[in-house]
């Protein structure tokens, strides 16, 4: 069976490496992008089975990317797992989150609990 492809968009290099290693150790193929532009490029080129996205990146890049991915026809249906240190709806609101945005398919809080992440990814990919 072909390995499921997971795109990790994360500006924190060490975090990206960590998630990629953990997911590939669990039988996924992991790709990383360190900023919004390359994230979107990789996503449209490779059309991953799932995207792990850090919402908090320079400026509002994480949120803009989330919005864009949700509106890109080729990426419709690709589940997005938000991996973030954001702790509250208030913090998300400050970042620019609004009611019109569809909720992410899963939300994983930092520091990341790897079994929880793997569980969520597996469920979404196999669904």
């Amino acid at each position, binding site marked *: 069976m072909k390995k499921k492809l997971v795109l990790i968009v994360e500006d*924190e290099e060490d975090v990206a490496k960590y998630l990629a*290693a953990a997911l590939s150790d669990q039988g996924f193929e992991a790709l990383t992008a360190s900023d919004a532009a390359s994230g979107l490029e990789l996503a449209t080129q490779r059309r991953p089975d799932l995207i792990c996205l850090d919402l908090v990146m320079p*400026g509002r890049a994480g949120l803009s990317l989330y919005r864009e991915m949700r509106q890109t026809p080729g990426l419709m249906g690709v589940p997005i797992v938000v991996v973030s240190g954001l702790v509250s709806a208030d913090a998300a609101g400050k970042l620019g989150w609004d009611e019109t945005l569809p909720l992410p398919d899963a939300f994983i809080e*930092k520091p990341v609990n790897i079994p929880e992440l793997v569980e969520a990814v597996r469920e979404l990919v196999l669904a």
Partner: protein
Amino acid sequence: MAKAHYQEWLQKELFEQAPLNIAVIDPDYRIVSSNRNFENLFGEAGGRRCYEVQKGRDEPCENCTASQTWLDGRVRVNEESGVDKSGRAAHYLVYLAPIFAEDGSIPYIIEMSADITESKRLKSEYQTLFEQVPCYVTVLNRDLRVVRANQRFREKFGEISGQKCFELFKRQTTDCANCPAKKTFADGKIHRSEQVGSSKDGEPTYYMVTTAPLSRGDEDFSHVIEMAVDVTDLRHTEERLQRARVVRRGLVEHSPDAIVGIGTKNDVLIFNPAAESLFGIPAADVLGRALQDGFLPPELEELVNARRGECRLESAVVRARSGEEIPVRLSGYAVAKDDEYLGTAAFVKDLREVRRLEKEKLDAERLTAVGQTVAGLAHGIKNLLTGLEGGVYFLRSGLEGDRTERIQEGWGMLQRNVERISVLVRNLLSFSKGGEPNVEVTAPEDLVRDVVDLYREAAAREDVVVSSDIPGPVAPAPLDPEAIHTCLANLVSNAVDACQMSDKRPCCVQVRVRDEDDNLVFEVEDEGCGMDQEVRKFAFTNFFTTKGKGGTGLGLLLTRKMTQEHGGRIAFESEPGKGSTFRLIFPRERLRLPDRPEQQGDSN
């Protein structure tokens, strides 16, 4: 001498020596005889007609009094005006007496005249004086009725027609309580008093009045002369001065700022209540005495000694009696009229409250910034923790699977994230630490060179050129060298990062310092990636970082805080793709002087 002879001599001498001009005229008005006085006045008269001699006329006078005496034989006295031998007007009092013959006829008239030219002149002078003297002159009778008044009086108080003085002077119907005229009538002495009248136009008129008896040297007198000097203008000037004095006193007394006036003998002339409370000294203890040394800043003492010029101290210290050093803003100037030095005035504003508020504001800003950014900080810490966990994961899985590259990677991740945590904690600590900068007189150029030296080599490895640009000499300034060094290091570090994020190579960072107007300005300019609107907006408001690895989001906040604690401000401009320029602007007048060592000695 025989008796007849004596009589003849006596008559001749009487005729010649009597202090009168004597002429004997006949019915044809010819002067048949005249004495020496007469001839001295009118010249040789023998045989000439009286009107020719005395008046220079060709025919008899129209109202000749002598002509009546010829008819009725009565003695007549009248005043005449004539012309003396030099052609000058002469005034004389003429006494005409008939000389009767035995048959009752009048062969001669004897005319005896006294020269009253002098008294006429005096009278005329008196009249002029009376009218023109710059006083209101009136003559009052015992009823206090004005019987005469000079022109000046009439112009001011109106024409007189038997009114009483108080009616004219004051438009009153009853006499005045302190009437000096009544006193003069009572004791015959001169009295003076100050009165307020009302002119015919109803304007208040202030005058100093002197009343004197109008007597001919005897005790009996029926009139009083009243001379009033108008002091209305003087009074108005005085009132204006008085008012100005009251206003000035009010301003000085109620000023919230301390006002100290120092006179020409370095004595304290003004010490208002605000000064009493600022210095903790009652005015009575200092007024009229020399202000003790050391209470006022040396700049003001210099001004007092120089007796000229002015000084403005935005940030100075005065010492209260208790020994407390009080931060103040002070302005002083030497007061002079024309070239005459009158004294020195100092206005002292107590800045304790202002300083307290400034500190409170800084504290509040710091707390707000900390509060606002706990979430952002939490995010940063969570990333660091995730990085640490990642390191642990790599190490463990590397050890378990004996994968060296994972062990190395994990070790690197642990080191990086531990270093980042220590930087974050250091910044956070210095940010939350409040308080006064530790100021000492510092050469600004040295700070710039130190920071450039610190970054030059490491930046060069990334092809970023860090250099200093100091166009001219910059005066030393009271600064906290460590704090400013940290500020500049933060800015340069940001600038180098911005260069690394751009494609330009080599990419330059210049650090400058200069005096601009009255400000000391540090400037860090880079050719890096610049900031878009989004980033500019967040630059100071959050624990915000654009640096994926390594930023704590505290650098600029910390820089701003330390700049503000020096009384300065931070400004920047930036354009995406072109670069950024950050400026630290310190108004020189707000840079506080370092604590003087002797003060510390005093407080022990």
